[in-house]
């Protein structure tokens, strides 16, 4: 592709949903249960950015579309949306009621899982800079594989908070599983079979 938009544009566009939802929320234009709409929308956008970030590598390897330069911004957007999502839950929803929040975290698997996903994202956000990449060397790549469990936990968090089995959370869980499975399956397909290697005279 000849023209690729600058990275700052991803941030600029990426924060539009957050600004729009907060503005509509303050104006009480988010429907009947605005707090819930805001909380869920922020969480959903965090998950969307996680999925988008996970899609970068498969897009490059399978379609030759190189969007690597946007990966950090997508990851950081996911982190910031997770922060906003968590803040709405802590401040607006639970009113910073420490006992209720702690009870939620230890007693409710979907909250435990959501918190775990967030905790996994924190070191990734802290090391999403050129300095950390230089400093950590190959350890940086290993550390950032934490995004795989984080995305799985985030999708599971979504599936677990709904009644019955509505399609949307399952679609996101499916996307995450697919994108992670690609990473397991693709290298095996790429590596030549022993027979092919033998034919090459090895």
């Amino acid at each position: 592709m000849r023209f690729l938009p600058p990275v700052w544009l991803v941030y600029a566009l990426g924060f539009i949903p957050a600004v729009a939802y907060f503005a509509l929320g303050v104006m009480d234009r988010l429907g009947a249960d605005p707090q819930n709409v805001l909380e869920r929308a922020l969480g959903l956008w965090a998950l969307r950015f996680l999925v988008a970030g996970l899609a970068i590598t498969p897009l490059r390897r399978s379609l030759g579309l190189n969007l690597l330069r946007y990966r950090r911004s997508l990851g950081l957007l996911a982190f910031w949306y997770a922060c906003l999502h968590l803040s709405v839950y802590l401040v607006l929803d639970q009113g910073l009621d420490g006992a209720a929040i702690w009870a939620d975290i230890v007693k409710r698997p979907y909250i435990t899982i959501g918190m775990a996903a967030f905790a996994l994202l924190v070191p990734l956000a802290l090391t999403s800079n050129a300095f950390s990449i230089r400093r950590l060397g190959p350890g940086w790549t290993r550390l950032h594989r934490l995004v795989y469990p984080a995305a799985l936990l985030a999708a599971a968090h979504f599936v677990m908070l709904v009644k019955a089995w509505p399609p949307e959370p399952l679609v996101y869980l499916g996307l995450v599983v697919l994108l992670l499975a690609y990473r397991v399956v693709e290298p095996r397909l790429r590596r030549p079979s022993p027979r092919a290697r033998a034919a090459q005279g090895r």
Partner: protein
Amino acid sequence: MLIGRKADIAPSEITPRAVWLDRRRFLGAAGGLGAGLILGGEAGAAPLQAAASPLSTGEPKTPKEDVTSYNNFYEFGTGKSDPKANAGSLTTSPWSIRIDGLVNKPGDYALEDILKGVSLEERIYRMRCVEGWSMVIPWIGFPLSEIVRRAEPQGSARYLRFETLVRPAEMSGQRSILPILDWPYVEGLRMDEAMHPLTILATGLYGETLPNQNGAPVRLVVPWKYGFKGVKSIVRISFVEAEPRTSWMTQSPREYGFYANVNPAVDHPRWSQKTERRIGEGGIFVKRRETLPFNGYADQVAGLYSGMDLRTFF
């Protein structure tokens, strides 16, 4: 009670019931038509006269817009706005309810015949959803006990089992590739719960006939239980001996019990039931409020469950 009191009005002066009903139907149809032309929505909603009831709460009512645009009716999709978006396709007339099982008067009863024998009341009730939100809704309806009496249950009838319509052609949620629930939607009540004066069959809200998305033309309202007990668009009421297996019990027996009484002390396995968000009460800065045992109706209904462990019978 006065016995043998002379009537103030000669029977000949009383407008025959059929004419009176027709007049209301005419006014209702005309009103509905007018409202339909003006609002362009709420197809078929007609004004409904109802007497006030001492059982109503004086709490501020949830705005009608919220009551009719934010609810669960999985037959039309799992999103909160799906029922309003998709329920317009439902045909609610003609409508009949099959009454069967352990009764002396089983049969298929036309809804208008059922309604002839009852007087409608407005019941402003709190409604607590199992998901942790609540509303105050001015229902219009009549006590379920009247239907029970007329059906003449036999001594062995201990429970009522309700079924919602199954009509995939008009109910988009029932056409879902991933089946959402095991249709038909089934709910149930114990006989004493069904006979309780708070338990009503509703045919309207906010002074009009029920919008399709709220369970037209007739639905159950049991204000001390979680909202999902309020089975909508009822087509069958069976009188049975054994506790009916409800749709939500089938879906997740660990999470949904038969009784489903509102109880802040018994959490849903996945979330707390201690507090609730009252819908329409102040944007994103709304504060949660404490959930009350039996949704605030404990004085009237706690006696039904005396001696029962409400953790076991949740």
